């Protein structure tokens, strides 16, 4: 791969003029990737950037509903139309023969490797621990959906994951169901937080929101009761994740400030997509869209200066280092799993599950939602009962995961939270 600089001055870099950004239907809709030979991380970039564009579209609408300034409304309408066209191009890269469940596996792969890398890169320890917490949940979703893929479609999840992301039970999905208020975190302080922390948070928020939308928009497409219920269950966890990550944003950021942040987030993400992409055809798309976003950024930066007297460089810095890449994070995920699998959320903090207060609000919530059966457990139990001999290449992966799942289940009292160094997490057995 050619070396690409990882630092840019986003305020000076030349972009594509706004009046050259609209595309015809023909130009907009490109041929999809081939699900059999696409690189897993190319697919991951497609999924991520679709989520980013949807967030930018969505935010632009919120902003538009709250402003009556013709110049701002006008620019919102213009840039939003571009975001929307970009979204079509990107989402339409997904091929029609990729089933909802296969795409779902890919979504959770994005969640795992995006969250893990962002956590590893995140300077603010509180934000990082929020990421680590969400990481183990999406990691577990990946396992539950993998079982569903095997059960419903008889497919090997690794045909999607390509060995880059592991399938091991994480924090059990049955335990992700928190009282809605318990999810809320403290926010960063906008004056002192690094721009990087803001970009990380907004990026992850976009991805989680996209995952939520995808599950809620497709979960009903399966006839199987179990599949419908599992999508309902995990779809709700994604709603938790959206609430969780958005609570990290400083609420005193103004609309215009946030608009600039969104454009900067797009520049950041298109930049690493462009730098990392291995498919030359898709790389061209990232390059083109990066050029569009640079212009959005400049135009909105001007608006911030004009209407709020704020120089966007002072707010977000002169240069931007783009470190992110989709890459394997297996070792890191295992470490987090070892130390944090048995952590739970308490108001604005974390606690080991055996030290939760008796009146922990999530107990009550779990009693309500888990009454009558837990789909994420049922899918595992059903698979265990089948006891099919390993026949296909991916079978031993799921077999291994099931052994861990059984172990975790039998081991509910084991304090896997490290700190005393005596953790005996199930993951140590997986080698």
């Amino acid at each position: 791969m050619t070396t690409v600089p990882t630092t840019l001055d986003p305020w000076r870099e030349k972009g594509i003029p706004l009046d050259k950004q609209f595309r015809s239907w023909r130009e907009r809709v490109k041929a999809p990737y081939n699900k059999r030979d696409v690189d897993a991380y190319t697919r991951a970039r497609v999924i991520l950037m679709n989520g980013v564009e949807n967030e930018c579209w969505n935010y632009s609408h919120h902003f538009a509903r709250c402003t009556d300034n013709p110049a701002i409304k006008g620019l919102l309408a213009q840039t939003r139309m571009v975001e929307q066209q970009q979204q079509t191009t990107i989402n339409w890269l997904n091929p029609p023969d990729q089933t909802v469940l296969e795409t779902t596996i890919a979504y959770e792969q994005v969640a795992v490797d995006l969250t893990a890398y962002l956590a590893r890169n995140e300077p603010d320890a509180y934000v990082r621990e929020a990421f680590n917490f969400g990481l183990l949940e999406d990691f577990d979703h990946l396992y539950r959906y993998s079982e569903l893929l095997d059960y419903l479609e008889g497919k090997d999840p690794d045909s999607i994951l390509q060995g880059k992301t592991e399938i091991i039970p994480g924090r059990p999905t049955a335990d992700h169901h928190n009282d809605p208020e318990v999810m809320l975190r403290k926010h960063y302080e906008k004056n002192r937080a690094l721009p990087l922390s803001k970009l990380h948070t907004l990026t992850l928020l976009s991805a989680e929101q996209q995952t939520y939308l995808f599950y809620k928009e497709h979960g009903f497409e399966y006839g199987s009761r179990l599949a419908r219920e599992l999508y309902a269950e995990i779809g709700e966890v994604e709603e938790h994740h959206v609430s969780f990550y958005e609570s990290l944003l400083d609420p005193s950021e103004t609309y215009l400030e946030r608009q600039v942040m969104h454009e900067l987030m797009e520049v950041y993400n298109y930049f690493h997509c462009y730098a990392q992409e291995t498919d030359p055809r898709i790389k061209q798309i990232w390059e083109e869209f990066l050029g569009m976003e640079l212009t959005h950024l400049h135009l909105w930066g001007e608006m911030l200066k004009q209407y709020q007297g704020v120089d966007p460089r002072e707010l977000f810095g002169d240069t931007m280092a783009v470190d992110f890449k989709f890459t394997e994070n297996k070792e890191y995920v295992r470490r987090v799993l070892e130390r944090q699998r048995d952590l739970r959320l308490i108001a604005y903090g974390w606690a080991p599950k055996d030290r939760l207060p008796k009146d922990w609000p999530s107990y009550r919530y779990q009693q309500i939602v888990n009454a009558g059966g837990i789909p994420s457990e049922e899918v595992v139990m059903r698979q265990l009962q089948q006891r099919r001999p390993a026949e296909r290449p991916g079978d031993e992966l799921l077999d291994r995961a099931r052994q861990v799942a059984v172990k975790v289940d039998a081991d509910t009292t084991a304090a896997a939270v490290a700190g005393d160094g005596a953790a005996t997490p199930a993951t140590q057995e997986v080698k």
Partner: protein
Amino acid sequence: MQLPVLLDKLSEFLMVEQGGLELYRVVASRCTDPALTQRYEAFGQETAIHRQVLVNLIQRLGGDPNYVSPTARLAQVKAAGLLQGDLVVDGLSQQELEANDLENVLLAETKDHADWHLLQQLAQQVDDPTVKQALQEVVDQVEDEEDTHLSWARDTLSQLALKLVTQGPAPAPERWQQVLTGPVPPIEQIHPAPIEQGLLEPARLSPWQETPVVRALRSG
């Protein structure tokens, strides 16, 4: 005299009284000092009368009290902005919250006072005798009360602030210099098993930068 301009202004002033009424309603409901609460309620009642006085004046001058001028809409947004503050910013002590409510009363009454001062000047300068008469009557009825609203808010707020600075209470040690400069204590205090290994270069950066003001001053 430009009657449409005057009627636009009166629509705005009417909205200011409406905003004041809403403000008094909120601050009276959450004030823990009985003396202040009593004032808020009394001023709220006077504000309701001012509202009626302006409605009558608008009608008397041939205007429509249902008309909402562009500057009235602006006044409405600004009034809501005062109450928006503590929906957006958390971390204030009860004393700070109540001082903030009083400060909002001061800001609102500053505008209210300026409105009535303007009406008083207009009453003196306008040559149309019916308009002059109408203005003079309302000013005579209201202006003294506006003087009281403003001076009371200003004096009480400074007394309150002086008392807070000299006698406290001071914010809790875990809040001081933390809510505003770094929202949380060290991670070990709130997280039983933070992750230290496997992190990459950027995670080693200081999570805090200097504020935009300090950075701007530094760069000249």
